[in-house]
């Protein structure tokens, strides 16, 4: 990668503009996630509604990124680092858009959950999981702007912690449901929320991998440890 300027300065402006869109999108997704988490915790239905509404703007930004990227490819035929920049911008905007969807879904479930009795203890664990993912997202976006491979690697590693927290919550929700079948509906919603936060972590991991590709031209080799074992280890379900 080189940070020298293009002879055609409009090319630099195009690349800068599309990366600014990504950062704007990233900021909106960060807000959506923290607002959704706060709405869930405080049973704030209005805030949850706001998160759902704001998702439209995130979707619109993704479309804007896609059409800008198409225009840059068509008019500038980017190569090497420039090519990797536009390819990663496109992928990252896709990851951010999906994260926005999960935040929106969290908002929807908050509206439903606010009508139900609270489940003891789960709120704090979910909040910690969301905080972890929010921080990962912030660091992944910083790694992107700084072209910081070490930070991107670190974010990837932290996704294992998110998976472990999800496993713990999965077991906890099962326990509550077994204790009292009246908890089932709420726990099912909470479980989907936990699962969606875990998936947000996967999208942040994908963003980190794009940072590594952008800088090095290669994707990281070794597979991350798969810490979400609920799908492969049925024993986890036996509490």
């Amino acid at each position, binding site marked *: 990668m*080189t940070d*020298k300027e*293009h002879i055609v300065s409009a090319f630099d402006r195009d690349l800068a503009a599309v990366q600014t869109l990504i950062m704007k999108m990233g900021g909106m997704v960060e807000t959506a996630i923290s607002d959704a988490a706060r709405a869930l915790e405080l049973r704030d239905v209005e805030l949850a509604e706001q998160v759902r509404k704001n998702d439209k703007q995130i979707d619109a930004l993704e479309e804007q990124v896609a059409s800008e990227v198409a225009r840059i490819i068509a008019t500038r035929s*980017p*190569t090497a680092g*420039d090519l990797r920049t536009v390819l990663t911008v496109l992928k990252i905007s896709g990851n951010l858009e999906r994260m926005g969807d999960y935040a929106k879904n969290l908002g929807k479930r908050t509206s439903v959950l606010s009508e139900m009795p609270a489940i003891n203890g789960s709120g704090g664990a979910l909040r910690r999981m969301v905080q972890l993912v929010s921080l990962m997202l912030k660091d992944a976006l910083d790694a992107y702007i700084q072209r910081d491979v070490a930070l991107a690697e670190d974010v990837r590693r932290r996704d294992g912690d998110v998976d472990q927290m999800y496993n713990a919550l999965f077991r906890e929700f099962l326990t509550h449901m077994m204790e009292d079948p009246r908890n089932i509906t709420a726990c099912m919603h909470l479980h989907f929320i936990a699962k969606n936060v875990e998936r947000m972590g996967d999208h942040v991991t994908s963003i980190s991998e794009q940072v590594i590709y952008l800088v090095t031209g*290669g994707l990281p080799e070794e597979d991350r440890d798969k810490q979400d074992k609920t799908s492969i280890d049925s024993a986890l379900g036996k509490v």
Partner: protein
Amino acid sequence: MSKDIKISAKGVDVFYGDTHAIKNVNVDIEDKAVTAFIGPSGCGKSTFLRCINRMNDTIDICRVTGDILLENEDIYAKSVDPVQLRARVGMVFQKPNPFPKSIYDNVAYGPTIHGLAKNKSELDEIVEQSLRRAAIWDEVKDRLHQPGTGLSGGQQQRLCIGRAIATAPEVLLMDEPCSALDPIATAQVEELIDELRASYTVVIVTHSMQQAARVSQKTAFFHLGEVVEYGDTDKIFTNPEDSRTESYITGRIG
């Protein structure tokens, strides 16, 4: 799978009087593949290309040192006849240079002196096939006996390509073959290059990065007379090793 090496340059230097135009170039050019030479104007692409069929011999002040092997034989050895060599290693020049003869004769000349046709109808066949492959047959088939110099610049260039392939060379050197061509003729020449790759070795100098990326499997980046980077075209255009290569192909100030 590693391919056979058709041409091997070892420690090649070229001087025009005191000008050191090529500096210690070492490259192995693969058989049955297209190799692109790219680099800023004046970096020595044409000079190096001309070493491969000893065209520099015709320039008085030009001196070539080092070895260039064609299928492991030194092409600068005393036993090698440059005229025979140029039948094996054909060339299309940066500026179209048709002979002051008819269109037909321009193409028929090489096959005739090298005895490639047994009779007139075979020669007619070679001329037609060569002009078809050079994507100019339809434009000249009704005026084959008019002078080649009477064609437009882009038509002359395609005529020269037809002339170069008429002798069925093993190696075809092309110095910016498409610089005077419109997009359709350019696409036709690129299609021809792709087709030639099945049986020949092609080396192309081009200023179009997109063309180099499209037609070649290997790319060499020349800079101030040196080969800065040489490797798979896919790699050079997605993730070059040298920052000078990256600056050049992405259009940055080097």
